């Protein structure tokens, strides 16, 4: 399986974080295709090939979704709930990547079926390390569920 075929969906409303995340991926030599959705609604459109993404190939599913929680329109936890509720995306790996360390968010994230919960560190160097480990794990080490 060609690693380049594995794409990433980054759901992030903050352009700074988006840029830093992409930078961190790059610095870790994770060169997979990264799609970015800037709010919850767009993320759902992308995943379910609807709205603006109607033309997208439904078979092209991201190998991993990096999901922020605090999102405009539809928040991250709701996005997660709908992803898990849909047959097509039920098994899709979703990693919550957020600034929040609130217990409630952690509990709800895992309860709704998040595969990981990662808190973005303020220190960029730590952030780079974290994102690198994340990509390494989900894109290289982890065997993806059958499509």
């Amino acid at each position, binding site marked *: 399986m060609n690693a380049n075929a594995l794409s990433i969906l980054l759901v992030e409303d*903050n352009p*700074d*974080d988006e*840029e*830093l995340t992409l*930078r961190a991926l790059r610095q870790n030599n994770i060169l997979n295709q990264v799609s970015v959705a800037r709010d919850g609604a767009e993320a759902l459109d992308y995943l379910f090939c609807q709205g603006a993404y109607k033309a997208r190939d439904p078979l092209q599913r991201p190998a991993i979704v990096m999901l922020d*929680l*605090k999102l405009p329109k539809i928040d991250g936890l709701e996005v997660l709930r709908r992803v898990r509720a849909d047959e097509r995306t039920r098994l899709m790996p979703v990693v919550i990547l*957020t*600034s*929040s*360390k*609130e217990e409630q968010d952690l509990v709800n994230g895992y309860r709704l079926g998040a595969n990981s919960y990662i808190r*973005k*560190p*303020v*220190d*960029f*160097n730590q*952030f780079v390390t974290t994102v690198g480990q994340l990509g390494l794990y989900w894109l290289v080490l982890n065997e993806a569920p059958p499509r």
Partner: protein
Amino acid sequence: MRKKIALAFVLVTLSCVAVLGMATYLRSQATLKERILSESTAAFATIELKLNQTIETAREDALFLAGTPPIRGIMRARRHGGYDAETRSTYDMWVERLQQLMISQLRNRSDYWQMRYIDGRGQEIARVDSLDGAIKAVPKNALQNKAEHAYFTETSKLPAGAIYVSPLNLNREHGRIETPHRPTLRVATPVYSVLGEQQGVIVINLYAARLLDKIRMQDGHQVYLVNQDGFFLAHPDPAKTFGFDLGFDYQLQHLHPRLAEKLRGDANEFVEYVDEPELAGAEDHVHGFRKIRYDPSNPKNFWALAFDLPASVAFAPITKLRNDFLVFGLLIATLGAVAGLVWAGRFSRQAVELAATAGEIAQGRTDLRVDLATKTDEFHALGQAFNRMMETLVSSESRFSNIINLAADAIVTVSEDQRILSFNRGAERVFGYSAEEVVGKPLDILIPQRFVNAHGQHMRGFVQEPHQARAMGNNRRIAGLRKDGTEFPAEANVSKLTEGGRMVFTAFVRDVTERERAEEEIRRLNAGLEGRVAQRTAELEVANKELEAFSYSVSHDLRAPLRSIDGVSQALLEDCASRLDDQGRHYLQRIRSSTQHMGQLIDDLIKLSRATRAVIRREPADLTQMAQTVFAELRRAEPGRQVEFQTQDIMIADGDLRLLRIVLENLLSNAWKFTSRAAHARIEMASFPDGTGERAYYVRDNGVGFDMTYADKLFGAFQRLHTPADFPGTGIGLATVQRIVHRHGGRAWAESELGKGASFYFTLGPFSRPSPPENPS
């Protein structure tokens, strides 16, 4: 009265003495009688024993003699014509040897008077007599033939070793009774040759006179000895003995027909108290007997010791006892009578005086007291008690009337026909009437007109209740009517008492106007308070929610820009490094370290707010384990440092696990931090009882310490005693510690000296465990 008391005294004393005396006498009499009767024959037992011993000794002597060599020698010599070749002895020599043996035996036995060896044909062969102290062998020519005597014929029939005891009779010589009479008893045993041929008998004659002497007098009383046929062997008049030998017919039968009849029966022993009819003039007497069976081979033969005593003699101890009782009883009764008379005199006089005093007091002279000087004993005590009672009565009466008068409540007594009997000062105040104005008036004047009927009905119902004294309708709310016509709310207690056959009601009436107003005020205030509490609670809830939203937002939104600043600075450093000089790179580093510090501040603030909001779930927490875990993390973060760490072996606290962990993290990381310059860094954690029933825990280090002047600022948020350049930190850690400790109901404090380390203490509140934490659903 005096006579009555004295008489009663005498009667009581007399009857007591009589009853006690009679009971004791009767019981003692019965016991004594029984004992006398049983002992009268028991005394005979010693005589019987003596007789038997004598006979037994004679038996042993006879058997001994029968087995001695001379008997054998005589038999051998007779068989061989007068010469015993075996021992080269003649017949006469053997007879002489036997006589010598008999002589030596007789010397030792004062009871014996004759020993004989009689051959198989009844001819005496050897005979030694002991007469009046002289012992001598009877010459051959004086020997007699005794073949027809019973002791010979009977003994000859016996087997070897058996014994014959003859009846006691008078000795006969040559067929005639010897004089003076010699009462004799014979003990005999047969002699057999080695071939088993009967070779005559050995006979020992016992002189019974000495024995009979003893029998004649027993304790000065008459005792008889009779044989199985009722003939006397011993009798006070010797002429009446041995009738069967001397040929006259005088037996027990003639003296005591009843005893003679009993004697013919099987009983070995008999005692009887004979109650003679009074008219016959004969005295009551005691008689009885005890049989002695002296001849083991012929149990039909016996002697009987018989006695007959006048009851006065037999029961002399009983008579004495009765007399003693009588004298004693009379003495006591006399003493009782005298004492009774004296005492009764004193008693009646004092009683009369007491009664007089009591009577006067009853007339109303409550100041009167009993004159104790003239009273003795119980009357003194009675007088004292009486006086004490009067004191108590007088003081309680005055106290009672004071209470009634000083009472704030109105106390009104009312007669059965509803007229006012008394009206205390409280009533005057409450109703506005003076006592003079209302006493004798109907109660209705104190009740508003519209309630009069209802009240009347109520009272009538109360009157008919069966209880003698009872409270009516406790704390019943009623309305009262003052003199000025105004009404007031009141609480009334009415009780009913029967006083001298007439019913009296006592009403306690309390004006509750003020109280009702106060109650109303309290109700109003309470309602307002509840409203305010509800409002405040709602406000607090809103504030709490806002705080939560705020802290969430801080945690999420405030960090995002910081991360951007840090990330972009880093990107700048990496991507545009060539276009920046050292100064520029330094600035960027400053930006980055500031953003990271702010990130730390935000994290600590969130922890603080969480400590404030969290629900405390107390459970046992192993602080030793927890401290070691935290310390291990510190060590991992800075593996280069050498810090000695010690904890108490077992340290179990009662608190919220997550919050306690935050406390230890803060305290231990502080200690870690402030010992960074110490030569030998040392951190210790332990606990001790703080003296108020709680346990105090502490973390102690040998770091830089702090100036106690600022100790009060230590636990405030954002308060720092060191510059960030010296020791990094946000100043929130100890505030969080204090917040958590306070939430547990404990306290936190610190002790230190600059340069000598610091100790941080905390407690966790009373050691009571609340209900177990609920399961988060």
